């Protein structure tokens, strides 16, 4: 079920939905919540390794080493070069109820510039949302930290889930975190199959 503004506000005011900091009530749209660009970024760079190894090989260079941290304070600007993808996070730290998930996309003002994000956030998630922001334009785009570039749509499940059921790699994160794909346990099985 798709939640409307009143329902989202009700969750926020009751404390079931946490949004910290909420800089403006105007972030609540009729059926969305606007979210802001956070202060920390991971920018990929080409090192001497020719590729990022996401096969689970424990000898491979860590995925995080292909990214460089950078930071801007709120109100400052950052450039996204044409076709560049950066990992960013939301300014807001969210905690979702156990029966609500959200779908994240760029607000239309920014998607028209060629900035694209698409992601789903699980029920019960807590933390700043780590997102991959891609500039599909042929021009570089300069954006401001703290700008409401994202929007979240809220969906209710038929029953509650337990976010902490199983290992959660990205819980309570406050900045973008490089992929932890290589810690997926099933990769060990697949690796053995592949070697054989």
């Amino acid at each position, binding site marked *: 079920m798709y939640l409307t503004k009143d329902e989202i506000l009700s969750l926020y005011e009751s404390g079931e939905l*946490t949004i*910290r*900091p909420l*800089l403006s009530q105007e972030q609540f749209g009729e059926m969305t919540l606007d979210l802001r660009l956070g*202060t920390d970024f991971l920018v990929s760079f080409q090192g001497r390794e020719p590729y990022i190894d996401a096969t689970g090989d424990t000898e491979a260079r860590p995925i995080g080493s292909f990214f460089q*941290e*950078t*930071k*801007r*304070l*709120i*109100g400052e600007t950052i450039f996204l070069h044409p076709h560049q993808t950066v990992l960013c996070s939301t*300014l807001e*730290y969210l*905690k979702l109820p156990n029966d609500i998930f959200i779908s994240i996309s760029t607000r239309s003002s920014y998607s028209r510039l060629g900035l694209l994000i698409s992601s789903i956030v699980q029920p019960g998630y*807590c*933390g*700043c949302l780590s997102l991959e922001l891609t500039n599909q334009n042929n021009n570089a785009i300069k954006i401001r930290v*703290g700008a409401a570039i994202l929007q979240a749509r809220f969906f209710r499940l038929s029953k509650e889930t337990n976010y*902490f059921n199983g290992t959660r790699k990205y*819980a*309570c*994160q*406050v900045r973008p975190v490089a992929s932890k794909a290589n810690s997926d346990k099933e990769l060990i099985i697949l690796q053995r199959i592949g070697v054989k």
Partner: protein
Amino acid sequence: MSPELVTLHLSQLQKSIEKSKTNKYADSRKRDYHDNILKLFDELNKIDFLGFSADSLVLTKKIIDFCFVSVEFLDNSTLVNIPHEIVYCLEKALNEWDDTNQYIIVTSLHNDLNCFSFNTLLSLNETYYDIIKAVFSISFNHRLIQINLPKYLSQDYLANVVLYHELGHFVDLRYQITEKLSTALNLSETERSYYGEFFSDIFASQYIGEASNYYLDYIAYNDPDSLSHPSTNSRIEIVHKFLSGKSDKILDDLKDATPKSTGKELRNRRNVISDADFRNFIPTILNSEEELHSIFEVGWSLWQGKISEFEVKNITKYEKYQILNNLIEKSISNYMILEKWNSYVPY
């Protein structure tokens, strides 16, 4: 000391200066300071050291060292490197004791896990600034408080409580609190040094409560009296007496001397806040500076105890460490963001 060696030293500085020109700072005062260092370097570059006396060469080398250290700390205090949140908290504490806006906290990150310390060279040694002004007509409007911390702990908010103690040393030296006290009481050098350590511990505990003792007990567990430091147990005890309002000769001496030197009293400067939000995996909303400093005590008390809300979710010890640090950081960061936002909102 030869003119050639001083010229070599200056050339080494040039390399460092060139790299630093692209530094970006959040604080415009650092930019001003950096610009003065660039001007000073340009002036030094104009001088021909041939014919300098030995004393003049030594002095010139010391001024070049001054530039080197300045650049080192400024390099480590750019937007990307500096641990913003902890420095923000320290600056808030500093402003209570010195509101001249003259002092800027800068950090240098080192590979040594025990290297929490503070250096007076760029903050309290007026000689350099006097000489630079007298000889080169360059006025530095600010001073840098240099704080060293371990690189791997720069985002460890549990360990970094030690920095409040280091800030205490700065305040002591800035106002010569224990120096004046020791002159008045005719103390020995060791006794003066002990008073300095006690002062810094008490200073820290004004803001972070018992948290100052927790980490001290860890990094200096059961240390006896030394030439420069009193025993860990006596330090823990005096903080405990301060926090519980009990009397003690040393504590009373410091409580008497501090307002005479600074105009400010040693007193509780924190508001104890609930840990309910952290137990619920969310950052706390901080409503005042007193609550801001209290966040460290919340983190420590949760770290040392069991958190049932974490245990039912099978959170491991390492995850607990990461979560607590993240929540402390985000709580402080949100306070910083709201402070800026609210100061610019037109209504």
